[in-house]
């Protein structure tokens, strides 16, 4: 993917926030850009397989409804919430895993900033000769 390094920087920036346990830009099957797993919170890694399977189910919904400009999807699993900030008209999403009682309002602002920067980078690719 173009601008992979810059997108990785955006994701690693988000990982510096205390309540962001994992962060990635992916589509179904976890295809996309993901920081190294050792940078993710260890508690999340212990249930990673369950999280992956659940996230994949949601990506089916995202793919089906992205043509209606589906914006965000959230779900709660055990003590975690998973936030999907979907890139417009696509089946890819900026995904963050956070603790269940985290302050989502504050995190949403930074997720939105991340999404906007990623979109800006991707559009830069489209404009280049």
């Amino acid at each position, binding site marked *: 993917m173009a601008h992979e390094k810059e997108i990785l920087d955006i994701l690693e*920036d988000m990982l*510096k*926030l205390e309540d962001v346990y994992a962060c990635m830009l992916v589509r179904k099957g976890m295809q996309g850009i993901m920081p190294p797993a050792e940078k993710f919170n260890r508690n999340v890694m212990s249930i990673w397989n369950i999280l992956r399977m659940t996230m994949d189910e949601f990506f089916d919904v995202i793919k089906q409804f992205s043509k209606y400009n589906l914006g*965000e999807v959230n779900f709660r699993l055990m003590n975690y919430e998973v936030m999907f*900030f979907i890139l417009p008209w696509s089946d890819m999403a900026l995904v963050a895993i956070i603790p269940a*009682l985290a*302050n*989502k*309002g*504050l*995190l*949403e*602002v*930074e*997720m*939105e*900033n991340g999404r906007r920067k990623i979109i800006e980078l991707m559009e830069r690719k489209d404009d280049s000769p």
Partner: protein
Amino acid sequence: MTHHKLEKTPGLKVSVAVSREWNGKTVASEIIGKINVKVQKPKFILLFTTIHYKDDFKLILSGIKDAFPDSPLIGGTVAGFMCPEGCFTRGVTAFALDYPNMDVCLGVGRHTKRNPKKAARECADMIKEGLKKNKYETKFLINLISAPLIPELPLVGKVNNVKSNILGMILSYIGMPLVSYLGSGIAKESDILDQLALSLPEFHIIGGSSVDDGRMISNYQFIENEIYTNAIVAIGCATDKEVYQENCAMVHETDKKFKITGTAYNDRIITSIENKPAKEYFFENVLGFSEKLFKNLGAFYYKTSDYFPLTFEENKERILGVGCFFGENILLSHKMGGKHAILCSVRGKEIITNMSTVFNNDEKNYPFILAFSSIIHVFILGKNIFDIKILLDRKLGDTPYLVLQPMIENTRTPPQKPIIRAYSFNALTLK
């Protein structure tokens, strides 16, 4: 929607700078560079950071003060901010102003939780002393006050949402006064503002409560190169321009009213409502749902309480929230405004709709806007806070603006009393 065409105010220059870098030195360098584009010799600088930078405050402050040694500086931690560059809940921002016909001085008062009136007097005395030779009529003060901190008791640690009635009573009557001596607990902003208004009767006031990311674990205030906790920091200004202030509240009253019949800690804790235990009455008769709906009271606090602030028949400008529960007692975010309480409600759409009512006067020219608007709006709106930015961009055009997001905000237009509340938007400019 009116678009304000700016007339340049001769000699008045403002810069709003943002850095999203992580390293303190790089942050300072970026902020300095951006300020310098428009304002080479600021009359004063306001500097705000989110809590993520607490290990780099010294680097950031010393960098900026080295670059602008003659520019008085105050600031502190906020949970977020909004400006033409965007909406952020992680970053550093500076507001730098230069205007030749302005005198400026700094004030600080310490131990605001232990003795709020004394802290306010100390701060006000510094401002009075600093401006005693000033020749300008109009005066205004920008302040930042340390917000509440979750109480921490010796041997017990941090206490929040206590179920036990016995421990709740101990905390209400002994614990809370004790922790204020140790620098935690309620912020007592209303005491501070009342004293400031008394000491500085001719001053317009605007400010807020310096907070972390809403966890209420730590907060910091800056004055020049120094870093404080538990302080009020302020900048007093005198100028030949007039001050213009706008403010609006973002909540609506419901028909749920109740009489507070018992209080503790100088009207900061509700112990009984309609002569019944406060928490039980509040849940069943006011909110209309059972506490058992929530797995724990922390869930109520995080998920629901932001949407149900309180106001008072006796003082409808006092809007506050439920802080936490001590047994059957309810700790409020600050001092109540009367005994006849009204449950309010707030919806995300309402916040945005109310914001569209500000800055609608065609006659106003805005050389800048400095505003304080509670971070609770971000808790409620999340990413939809960007809708407010779109509104402000449309109304203000290329006017530099900075909206800080503290815990609660304060404002005062003399000779009226100060207003201390959450869920509002308060702005100040010069004309």
